[in-house]
């Protein structure tokens, strides 16, 4: 027997977004070569785009059979969804990761990664300041030796 599960808050909104994205892909795929030939460069992308649209549609249909999430109205659901998808730790940490990627090139790899690792270990409550500085330094030395000395890979 299939167990019916509850819809996750915001799940349908996400699938609708995916549906819109699929339609956008399908249009892009059509614009590659139209219906010129069954072996045109656009034929396979169009097929894949169509599969995306259809499967997103089927997901929406399937979701109709599931129980609604525990929310009074749409606004309430969105509120719950935002809380579930973006917990405080996640927002802070993703912010740190994005910041790291931005400063990666201007600050160079070693200093930016050192600061990133040390800060995020403390933020994520992995360990205290002293230990996080030591672990970051150790990890970076390992990475640097392996990539730069043995493989002569260029670092960002």
């Amino acid at each position, binding site marked *: 027997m299939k167990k019916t599960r509850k819809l996750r808050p915001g799940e349908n909104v996400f699938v609708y977004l995916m549906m819109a994205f699929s339609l956008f892909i399908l249009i892009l795929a059509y614009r590659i070569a139209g219906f010129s030939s*069954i072996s045109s460069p656009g034929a396979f992308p169009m097929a*894949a785009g169509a599969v995306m649209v259809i499967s997103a549609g089927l997901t929406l249909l399937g979701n109709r059979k599931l129980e609604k999430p525990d929310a009074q109205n749409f606004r309430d659901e969105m509120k719950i969804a935002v809380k579930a998808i973006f917990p405080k730790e996640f927002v802070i940490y993703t912010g740190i990761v994005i910041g790291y990627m931005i400063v*990666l090139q201007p600050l160079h790899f070693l200093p930016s990664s050192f600061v990133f690792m040390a800060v995020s270990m403390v933020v994520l409550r*992995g360990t205290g300041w002293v230990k996080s500085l030591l672990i970051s330094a150790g*990890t970076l030395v390992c990475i640097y030796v392996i990539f730069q000395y043995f493989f002569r890979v260029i670092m960002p």
Partner: protein
Amino acid sequence: MTESVFSYFFMGWFDPSLMALTAAGTLAGIYIGAIPGLSVTMAVSILISFTFSWEVNNALALMVGVYCGGVYGGSRTAILLNIPGAPAAIATSFDGFPLAQLGEAGRAIGVSTVISVVGGFIGVAVLALAAPWVADMALKFAPRDYLLLAVMGLLLVGSLSGESMAKGIFAGAFGVIVGLVGMDPLTAEGRFTFGTIALLGGVHFVIAMIGLFGVAEALVQIHQIDLKPVKQDVSKILPSWSVILKYLPLAIRTSFIGVLIGALPGTGGDIASLLAYDHARRSVKKPSRPFGKGAYEGLIAPESANNAAIGGAYIPMLTLGIPGDAVTAVIIGALFIHGLKPGPMLMIDTPHLFWFTVGNLALANIFLLIFGLTGIRIFAKMVELPKGILIPIIIVLSVVGTYTIQNNIVDVYWMLGFGIFGYFLKLYGFQVGPVILGVILGPLMDVSYRRALMSCRNDIGLTVQELFTNPISLILTLAVIWMLISQTPVWKNRKNRLSSK
């Protein structure tokens, strides 16, 4: 003749320097393979310049070692961190990572080591005994057969979809689109590039792999940041004989899949291990645990297949001068540089090379067993690090690994984009496995589909007819049809009713 075969075969075994080089290569390969972003292809390419002035046998011994070790090494990080160290280890992560979450990482690595060696030896045996025959068959594969193989691989979506088949298919089709971004290999036309040059080169699938598996997993883990990591049981790493014997029949079957896929030009360990995983899901009636939740069968199938694919990849390379995968393509380059002429005449001009390579591969597999079973305790303990320490390390490794592929910072942004998108997919019950499946198989499907049609002058009727008249195509077509039927609810219900009787 037999005497010389033996002397060539054991050349690397009795020469201390050759033996040391094979050993060093294998050891280095394991760690290269384990680090995402450092690929075997890259390592072997670097070794070419490094060994330029060496004697050819020494250079080849080192490369064989790195190749064997690297293909195996990818499983380490796949099991421990859910980041496949190499594309050939993608399927390993499906059941390997759940095993680590159950606290059985040590045992999982132990089993995968032994089984990899079993697969490796089967690959070597086929290479030694049936190389000309397999090479002949591999060359008979037409574009439509590659298409059928890719379809077979894509059918794996059915078993990787998780809670909803439609969601799995969506993820797979999305992966196909990602794989198609860039210049069309047949017409050099840009697809999904928005007119920019930056996208013309396409999205390297390792970038998608690192983002979807590594970063997305790290972001999901933040939700349970204070959860204590699972204690790893490292008391019993070496699998007992009875365990190995129990899984041996499956390992032998999947190894043969590995050899054949490896021998096909253009397909390597990544596709071999995915098809092997699919085979295990279909053929094993009572797995040790449900697939995807830590079944040892799901670990054994890809691990035996990807190492068996090494022997397979050498088959067309040594007999015909056609590379079986990317690494053997690079090795062909190395042979050229050292003044040899890879091609159909290679075995006649330099007969020792064939048996020397076979012997070396066998030797590398022995070293793989020795080195693979050491250091597992330390590796397994790595997972016990608090998540707050592990996650930043994963992110930095992902960044370095992505950047090294093409030395392009844009790739790092792509990787992060995949990571965040993967996070959303995971939260809403879409699996990331099918995405990566699509990225790998999509381009192969696209090109072989169009080649197959073009070879029949775009005549669909003729193409379909060829699917049933050519012997190889017929076997593959029937296999695909059977796979499709066995996934339908009608068939599954019937089977359940029969088994309950």
